[in-house]
């Protein structure tokens, strides 16, 4: 698994995303959030999520452009 670029459908910003499993998500921004309509402003770490970006990540998963890891539960159970 590695980080893959995902473009936000709401603002066009591109972030790097990794999904090790469906519930897991890593998002690495590579530029400031000051142009994100949901996060712009001071102390945006106080906002847990940009819903526009989350929808885009979910769509990328549905459309198969973002691979989801399956190693969270190995076949032998451990």
């Amino acid at each position, binding site marked *: 698994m590695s980080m893959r670029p995902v473009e936000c459908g709401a603002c066009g910003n591109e972030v790097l995303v990794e999904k*090790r*499993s*469906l*519930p*897991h*998500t*890593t*998002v*690495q*921004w*590579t*530029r*400031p*959030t000051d142009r994100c309509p949901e*996060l712009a402003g*001071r*102390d*945006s*770490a*106080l*906002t*847990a*999520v940009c819903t526009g970006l989350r929808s885009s990540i979910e769509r990328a998963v549905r459309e198969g452009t973002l691979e989801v890891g399956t*190693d*969270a*539960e190995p076949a032998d159970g451990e």
Partner: protein
Amino acid sequence: MSARSTTEDHGPRRIEAGAPPERYARGWHCLGLASGFKDGKPHGIEAFGTELVAFQAAGTGELHVLNAYCPHMGGNLAHGTVKGDALACPFHDWRWAGNGKCAGIPYAHRVPPRARTRAWTTLEENGQLFVWYDPQGTPPPEGVTIPRIEGAFSDEWSDWTWNSIRIDGSHCREIVDNVVDMAHFFYVHNSFPTYFKNVFEGHVASQYMESDPREDMTAADTLSAQGRLRSEASYHGPSYMIDHLWTEVGGATAETVLINCHYPVSPDAFVLQYGALVKKLPGMTDEAAAQAAAQAAEGLATGFEEDVEIWLSKTRIDNPLLCDQDGPVYQLRRWYEQFYVDVEDVRPEMTDRFEFEIDTERAVRVWRDEVDANLARRAQSAQR
């Protein structure tokens, strides 16, 4: 950084303990409740590898922090006396104003023109006193501040409880690491996390957590003793965390604000401070609110004691071996590093937004089984 197993055997993992940084984190550091410094006496504080003194100017009522040692002959101003708006040295009665200027030497014709000691930049917010530390001597940039907590100024909330403990033999990174450490809440703090997410951006690092109490532990042992807990906790800078908590108690939601903060004493010692504010439930008296806050503080104290016990016997570890269900320790430390380098060396990756949501499915399942097994064992032994 990934800890997935491979078929190759690389030999046993070697722990890199490293050495704690020689410098201290740039940022605001809470020294305690402001009221504690407003008794007309100077207060010595061992911090940042030196001695400080905090005092309240008798005239203006303002709190000031100076270097404790008098530049004249080294007397300790913490043993001196507040005289007007100045602090007088116990050794030769040299007077020091809150801005660091020598305000008078009673036995001398004149004050040497460059007589000045170090005055630390202070801030009073939320009923607490803060000092700004920056080894480069730069004042706090705009926007790098301590957010106001409305509950600290409202009659609808209790007063602060406040506790302080000194930890020797550990660097304060140990307490900061807890931001991402989901599993330790189950094993160390007897709480049962079901949701866990971190967001780091700029000088703020947040932890979003939902948890239940562990039913196999007695209520007094748990951080989330009462019921399902939602927590939004953020470090504002390197050392001051505000934790907003919502707990379900008998159909109502109890609101609590916890402060978890520290300041370094030396590279391997720090003072941990914590306090609680509780929002009064409808019809709650001041007394009952104070009691609820005291109870929250007690739970908090238990939690920190549990952490301290781990720290006292653990090693510093620069290369933790992680699994997928651990939080982003390395990215948290990358964020934390911004406070230990010069401002011009802060790299974008230290401050760029980073989000990490843990897949808690397996942990919740395994922990549920463990709790159930413990409950069954207890029921069985009760029957005997």
